[in-house]
């Protein structure tokens, strides 16, 4: 018979200073999800219902980005969708890639791609200057 150590009997010392990351990630998904419904629906109506994507040209985008309001709208859509999507994929990878090394590699790949898209998108939104 294997001897069993009973060191875990009695009171535990309360864990302190644990990370709140999973808690906030969970809460963020709910809040960003709400905002994304509004932002994505707005984006879809503007691009596909009120206008036709076939008719969208440089002039249309430049006119929209003349106002900081639409730049902010697009930047919020970009940021929230990338963060929401990245966290979702992080969860999927944690659940489905059992091998620790592969999981870590996949996660690094995900973080790299997301950061690249975020930086690129933000750069375009901030640095865009209309050519006359």
């Amino acid at each position: 018979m294997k001897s069993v150590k009973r060191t875990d009997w009695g009171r535990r010392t309360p864990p302190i200073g644990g990370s709140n990351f999973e808690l906030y990630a969970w809460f963020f998904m709910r809040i960003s999800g709400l905002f994304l419904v509004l932002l994505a629906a707005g984006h879809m109506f503007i691009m596909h219902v009120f206008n036709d994507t076939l008719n969208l040209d440089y002039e249309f985008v430049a006119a929209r980005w003349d106002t900081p309001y639409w730049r902010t709208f697009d930047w919020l859509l970009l940021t929230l969708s990338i963060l929401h999507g990245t966290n979702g994929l992080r969860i999927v990878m944690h659940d489905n890639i059992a091998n620790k090394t592969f999981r870590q590699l996949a996660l690094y790949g995900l973080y790299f791609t997301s950061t690249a898209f975020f930086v690129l998108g933000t750069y375009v939104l901030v640095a865009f200057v209309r050519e006359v």
Partner: protein
Amino acid sequence: MNVKVNILRYNPETDRKGHWEEYILEADPDERILDLLHKVKWFDDGSLAFRRSCAHGVCGSDAMVVNGENMLACQVLVKEVSTPIKIEPIRGLPVIKDLVVNMDSFFDSYKKVMPYLVNDDEPGERERLQSPEDRDRFEDTTKCILCAACTTSCPVFWTADTYVGPAAIVNAHRFVFDSRDNASKQRLEILKDVDGAFRCRTAFNCTSACPRGIQVTKAIEDVKRETLTIN
């Protein structure tokens, strides 16, 4: 009537993995799945291994997968399931023999959430009083019998054996929302870990698997929200 029963057998001394064996049994429609297992063990093959104690849905020993769903073999009648009846051990835990699984990690997770009353205050003249409303707050989760039907039906638990699982969170819920208990914060600190309550993806398998009808997913969501309020 004759019933065809397929059981996923595994003998650690001779088998590398499990294999199906078929049994044709004479059974009454009102007999339980557990009675079928008894017939096999007592009159056909005495080497069949499975757990059962009270045989009346109270002890929680005989949780198994019947026709793909987790249930207690002592709670389900032959007429309630389709034939052939396929019986497997619960999933996600290592099989010791036939329908018997090693439940060590399941009980380790259970112990991890401090499933006992913590209160060092003086109880007063008689007992610690509690209003019926306060008692109702955790009524549902007092019904848990630790059969592991919920935890072993959870798709997250199948792939991540470090996840504490629904049963442990249900038993944390039972004390977290008990007005007489003083260690809610400690339990929630334990459950906010990456393998704690936030690992739940609300698949609802646990809720449909629970033989006691506990609203397991709801209890887990309660715990998540409560964690938010203490932080």
